[in-house]
């Protein structure tokens, strides 16, 4: 049961208030029509799915309804960093 710091509400809130929104940093291709079927399929379905630090999006569904990025270890479940959409994660461990 995670406790997640919402960067918009600026406080830690309980997991029940949030929804997971998948892997972060998968930008939509600028020109989908230029992609082959398999390149498009990769955008649609292929995920990093790492064992360890994972960059993912969460949304504060029951709170401010804003999206943000989280760097979370998928084994220890420790949250290593929380950072805004559109930014890259800070150096690991800086959380």
């Amino acid at each position, binding site marked *: 049961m995670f406790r997640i710091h919402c960067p918009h509400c600026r406080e830690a809130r309980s997991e029940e208030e949030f929804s997971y929104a998948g892997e972060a940093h998968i930008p939509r291709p600028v020109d989908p029509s230029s992609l082959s079927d398999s390149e498009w399929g990769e955008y649609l379905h*292929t995920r990093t799915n790492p064992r360890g630090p994972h960059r993912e999006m969460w949304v504060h569904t029951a709170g401010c309804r804003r999206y943000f990025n989280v760097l979370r270890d*998928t*084994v220890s479940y420790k949250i290593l960093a929380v950072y805004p959409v559109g930014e890259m994660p800070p150096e690991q461990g800086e959380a």
Partner: protein
Amino acid sequence: MERYSLLGLVRHARHYHENWQRVWRDPAPKKAYDTVIVGGGGHGLATAYYLAKVHGVTDVAVVEKGWLGGGNTGRNTTIIRSNYLRDGSSHLYEFSLKLWEGLSQELNFNVMFSPRGVLYLGHTLHDMREIERRVNANRLNGIDAELLSAAEVQKLVPLMNCSPDARYPVLGASLQRRGGIARHDAVAWGFARAADAQGVDILQRTEVTGIRCDNGAVTGVETSRGFIGARKVACVAAGNSGVLAAMAGLKLPIESRPLQALVSEPLKPCLDVVVQSSGVHCYVSQADKGDLVIGAGTDSYNGYGQRGSFSVIEHTLQAVCELFPAFSRVRMNRHWGGIVDICPDACPIIGETPVRGLYFNCGWGTGGFKATPGSGYVFADTLAHERPHPLAAPFSLDRFATGALVDEHGAAGVAH
């Protein structure tokens, strides 16, 4: 391999059970094998067994980083059924169910397959339409399926709350009588013992740390016990498929998530069929030992922690108490998690990869246990003939490029 039987038990009892032999050997790894199977769970061991038994390929090692059956084989709620919606999946699961029906005899190991019937409840008009669609499709595919009224459900499960006043009343159900449960550990052990007897090397406590490729073809696996050469490498390691794929430079359309389950304390028999409801999110059966075995949902996030969010347990038990108000006073003994590899269409990936000689069998999501023998059988066939078994063909990796997804979200049950 010594044949197990009642007579054998009596004979061994005379010698105080001091003469039982090992169920499988503990060999040192050879330098190389024809085929190395990564993952000593039910699917991997079944693959090894059928490779040896059906195809005569015995130069096989099963490499397991921990203990046999320690992944999802030993963590699931053991529901077995074949009433899937789409042709591709129903044929595969039905093939598997037929193997289950004779598996104890085939392996000479009692896997306690108990075809006590699987009920799938409908709570809304929409549910009932979907159930009817599935029941009809099942019948046409030669799979036993019945449509039950709420009254018939009540008769089958007296403790169930079938009141029309419930928040989501039971409107009816599908019943697959040939479905049921089995003893999960026994499946891994039975396949391991039988594969070992065919000459397969089972290497426990051997962790794969790398997959070696040369010129687009696999040459073997790096392990914690050194390099093991192989002409073919078959990865069957639920919960680790992505990690293994990355070792070969591949990415898969898979996300690994915790799936939770729980058991009550042992009770005298009070539930004779398996009950599934995706409407109120409740999957419950009663094990032979008496525990209520309850499947909870998957967590919404990726994780390899073999534990999940407590809210999932709360929601599951709300559903159980809603559906079985008498179980409210029963107590939860243990809950735990497994890691399931989920594909976008809730169907597995079975077959070749862009790396020659490297095969994957993964992505079974929440429903892999029931497929164990069938999955092993078709995967072994695919490995032996280096082309997809016809039943595995719809589940190739390239469907994610062509768009030919199989979409079993409805029938796969657990909401993803």
